[in-house]
Structures are given as C-alpha cells and as structure tokens.
C-alpha cells in the first residue's frame, strides 16, 4: 500500500528536480559566454536584496536572513474522514502558530504549534533553501513533531495519548509575480512512537514506519495594507491523524484528511 505513495512521491521529486535541472541548463545556455551569475549577493553588492524587499512568507522555501525571525498565526481546518467519524463530517479547526529563524543564508529552523486545547501538536525542524532561478526556490527539510491529548468526560473518556512523528519534506516555491508566490510541498509521514492509556492501562507502539504522505498547495501574497497571508490546501493520506487519536483508528488504510489552511504572516 505504501509503495504506491512512495512511488508517487519519488516521481514528484524526480519531476521537480528535472524541472530545476532544465531551468538551470537554460540559464547556462543563455549566459554560456558569461561567468555564471551569482544568485546571492553580499550586503555591500548593489544588487543585494534588502530583507524587507522579500515577500513575507512561511511556506515559500526561501530562508529568512540569518538571525531574522518570521512568524504567522492562523487556523487549520481538518475535515474528518467518514471511515472514522461516520455520519458526523465536520471541519475541525486548530489554532496554527508558525515561527521560523534563519541560521545561515540557506539553513533555517522552523517551529510550529497546532492546538485544540484538549490536544496539541508541537513541531520543530530544519530546512535547507536554494534559489535555483529568479523565480524558483527549493527547500528539503525534516520536521519532528510531538502530539498529546487528554480527555476526561464522565461515563465516556478517561484517556490520554501522545506520540512522535517525523515529516521529511521537499518544498518547491514559484514566484509567479511580485505579489503571488505558490509553494508545493510534498511530505512523507513517519510514525516513530505512540502511547495510549485508558484508565491505568497503557499500550505502546514504537515501530518506525511510513504512515502516509501529504501534499500542500499554498499561495502567499499581500491581503490588505502590508498584511500578507498564507491561503492553501493540504491533502494528507495517512493511517493516523493526531487530531483524531481519541477515535482509536484501527484501519491499515491511508485515509484522506483534506485541510484548509489560512494564516496571517506577522
């Protein structure tokens, strides 16, 4: 079952790499008689891009300047799969806070908190950003997230659970115009650890396995005045979603979790 997603994932990555390679070749051909142009300029260079000239973004795979931080706050709406919630099909909101900090001119750290109060997800990770052409950027990365939830409801729940997952990813960003940037992010979802407890009885799973894949399509652009926003869609196919831990999914099938994401870039 996973193989088809891994194959799809590999195809996507290959196509994107081919795309980048083709673009790079085109650049080389055009400027073959010239020294290869540098993509990043030193601060004293006249063509250096001032930090505030960059488009504010969270998903677009362009590293913040070293030492600079960017943040966003918004909501993620996750539609529940009918296999788990049956006739109750709802779009569950979670508060979504992102923070990113440039470490070097290419490497940046990310942090993300998603919370629904009774259950939360905290993640941290690294991205390595490259600007391939004037418009095209790419950033492979990996996030490690920890989720936890607890429910105590009379006659219904006395349950807690937590777990750890990893999300290796490749983000490809394309700057259509000065005001619109599209990012396509492909992620593999990997289970590292899961512990669930009801009353005083606990079970754990510590097998490391690929749980599913996710694809995100994100537009980032100005909205009003200087305020920029991220608006997009994430399609996750996975055996487990932390927001639905209390439904104790037993399916060994990649269920579809569509997510609508909206965030204000601070």
């Amino acid at each position, binding site marked *: 079952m996973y193989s088809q997603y891994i194959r799809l994932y590999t195809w996507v990555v290959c196509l994107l790499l081919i795309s980048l390679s083709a673009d790079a070749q*085109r650049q080389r051909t055009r400027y073959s008689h010239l020294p290869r142009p540098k993509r990043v300029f030193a601060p004293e260079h006249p063509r250096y891009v001032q930090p505030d000239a960059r488009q504010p973004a969270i998903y677009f795979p362009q590293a913040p300047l070293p030492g600079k931080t960017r943040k966003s706050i918004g909501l993620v709406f996750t539609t529940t799969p009918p296999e788990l919630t*049956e006739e109750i099909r709802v779009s569950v909101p979670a508060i979504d806070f992102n923070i990113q900090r440039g470490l070097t001119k290419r490497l940046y750290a990310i942090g993300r908190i998603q919370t629904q109060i009774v259950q939360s997800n905290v993640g941290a990770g690294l991205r390595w950003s490259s600007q391939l052409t004037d418009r095209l950027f790419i950033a492979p990365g990996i996030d490690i997230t920890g989720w936890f939830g607890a429910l105590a409801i009379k006659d219904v729940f006395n349950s807690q659970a937590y777990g750890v997952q990893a999300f290796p990813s490749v983000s490809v960003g394309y700057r259509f115009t000065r005001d619109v940037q599209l990012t*396509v992010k492909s992620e593999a979802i990997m289970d590292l650890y899961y512990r669930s407890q009801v009353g005083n009885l606990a079970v754990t799973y510590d097998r490391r396995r690929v749980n599913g894949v996710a694809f995100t399509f994100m537009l980032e652009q100005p909205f009003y005045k200087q305020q920029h926003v991220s608006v997009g869609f994430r399609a996750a196919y996975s055996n487990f979603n932390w927001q639905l831990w209390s439904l104790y999914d037993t399916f060994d099938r990649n269920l579809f979790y569509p997510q609508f994401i909206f965030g204000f870039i601070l």
Partner: protein
Amino acid sequence: MKSVIYFLLGVLLILTGSCRKNYEAPVPYAFNNTPGAGHFVPSVRQSMEGVYAVSDGAGQFGGQVVLKWTYLLNGADTNHYLSIFTGTDAGYFNLEGNPKADSLVLNGYWRKLVNTSTGLVQLTVKSKHNGRLQVYDTNKLETADTLVLEGLYSNDKASPTQKLTLTYRRPLNSRPFSIMAHRSGGRTSDLLPVSENSVEMIKLASRLGATGIEIDVRYTKDGVPILYHDNALNLRLIQKNGLTGPIENYTYEQLNTLVRLVNGEKIPTLEEALETVVTNTSLSLVWLDTKYIGPMDKVQAIQQKYRQKAILNRRNLRIIIGLPTTEAVDQYKALANKDNTPILCELDTAITRSLGARIWAPRWTLGPQTQEVLAMKAEGTTVFVWTLDEPKFIQEFVSQNNFDGILSNYSSVVAYYHYSEQQ
C-alpha cells in the same frame, strides 16, 4: 518556460493523487452452501476446534490461529462453516467443506479487516502419526497423533499457490465469555460483504467470531421498530437515492420501497432481525441498543415475543434492552410492566444498581475500572465493555479476565484472544 511546464506537470501529478480513494474488498470465493457437513461429521468438527500453530504462512497470518466451527439453520437444513481467527490485522478465514472431495477438504477465503487484503484458501485435514502425515480418520486417531491442516492460499482471486500449514496445539479456552459483534456483525466501513444492521449481517456474525450481537433500534414515522444506526439517511449506510434527513421522517413503506442499504439489502424491521436470530443462528445474546427517543413499549413487546419463541425453540438466547442514555433510562422507567424485560445499563454503577440491571456495560475508554468491575461482579452483575476494536487493548482486556464479554467491530480479534487465552 520549460521549468514551468515541468513544475505544472509535477503539480498535475500530485493533484491526480489528491482524491479520496475508494477501498473495496470483494469476497473472492462463492460459497456452495451445501446443506449438511459432508465428511465433516460432528466428531471430526469437534476434534478440529482448537488453537493451532502456523508454520507455512506465519508471515501472512501470524504464528498462531484459532479454529472454530459455526452453523446456520435454514429450515430443516444446516450449513456448517469453519472459521479461522488469526489475531493479525483482524484476520479471519471462512471455509466450507468440499462435498465433492473424497477426503476432508475445505475451501473458502481469508480476509484482513483492517485493510483490503483477501484471497482464496484450500486446506486438507490430515493427522501426523509417528511424524508422517496421513489421511485423517477419527476412528484411527491415537493419543500421540496431531491434527494438521495443510494447503495453499493466494492473494485476491489468484489460484492458491502459497503454502499454509496449521498444526494443532491445544483446545480452545472454555471460560464462558460473550463475544458480541457491533451493529449486528460488523461495520460497513470494514468493507464486509454485507451491510451493517442487516439480516444478512446477522447470518454472518457467527462466522466472524460472534456469540452475540448488538443491533441499533429506531422507529419509523409510523412507529415500526427498524434497524438503523445513524441519525439520518446518508451515503455511508444507504445507496444513493436523493433522500436525506432523519429516518424517523419516513414511513416504513417509503423506506421499504425506496431505500436500500449500501450492499443492496432492505432495512430490516426489529421483528425480521430477531426472527433471523432465533430461527437461523446459534447466537446466544442480542443487545438492543436504544437509538430512538419515545415509548419503549413496542420494543419491549417484540423482545418478549421473541424471548418466548426462543424458549419454544429450545434456544439459549437472551434478548436485552440496552440503556445508553438518561433518556433511555426514563423510557424504561415509564414502562407499565417491567417483568421479563432484561436491561443493560451503560451509565454509571449507581444508576445500574438503582435500575436493578443485570448487566453493566461501561465504555472501554474509561479503562479497566478494576475495582468497580469486581464490585459489580461480586453483586452478581454481568459486566461487558464496549465498543473495543484496538487489538492491543482487546488483548489486555481479555487477559485481565475481569469482564464477561466485549462488544467489538472486530469480533474475530476478540475471538482469537479469548479462545487462545491459556487457562
């Protein structure tokens, strides 16, 4: 520009996969349903039941399985089926004797409920005598002989080619225990061949490991008790026909004419369901889950009618009214006569005691509640837990030995852990 084309191609590829996948698990085997058991006479069937070690095929089905015979009554005829519960990925086998074969041959299929894996199976029953396999004959069986089921299995509809060998290890755990199947046998979302809360699912329940069933009772607009789980007509449970909204808005005739469950069955009345339980199955318990809001007298009358019918048919069958909410408790309290109306209370122990319920059934998500469970049992109350599907927790709850039964969508998993439990 080229890069944009490749970029868009990549996006296109991703979007192609960005759709909800429809999973299916069609049964690859057509049962002959020949009446009688053929060569599988009662002594053979009895000797075959037990816990077996898996040698060939352990990678697919785990190292140990449980074999159990069940039957369906069809008037004067009886159909016998062998079920194998694997404990791995909620796996089970459904097999029937091959009447055309000279020896003890079983044909059927296997399925894993957690995913869509399925395939065909052919097994032959043999005995191992002095280390050599030979034709199984109960009359010639010696104490040191071991029963072996040997054969082949396949994936999907392919002809079986992969070896499967099961070797008898020990008898089944005989501790009395109720294995109750949710929604009359299992969930529609587990891609079973028949729909939940249907007559056909009731007939399948035993083969999935159940000794009892839970069914969901609602009233139609004209007051007919029927089986239906959800609050509204929806495509999870019924075939598309444009009708939506609460089932209580429709008359029985409207539902019976225009609505079919996802696998094509009619929505059964409570009477049709209990008639099937009494006359066709060997199930020993029916838990009527109260999904309706309104008077309970009609359900009580039907419960008592089929209780009498079961007694007349010499059937060991308990039909119990489940009280999941305070509203249901009030409806029960409003009954004029509560004689011969066994109830099951899902609320706390105080309410259970105050109602004089003989069965207490807390949710499994409250945990084992060992003190409360032991206290209730000491008072003579039967204690079930519901609706427990998580295999590791099923194993833990069974091994703790405190509960008298488990309600599950995976009765095959409960059956595996219960019957294979070492006494």
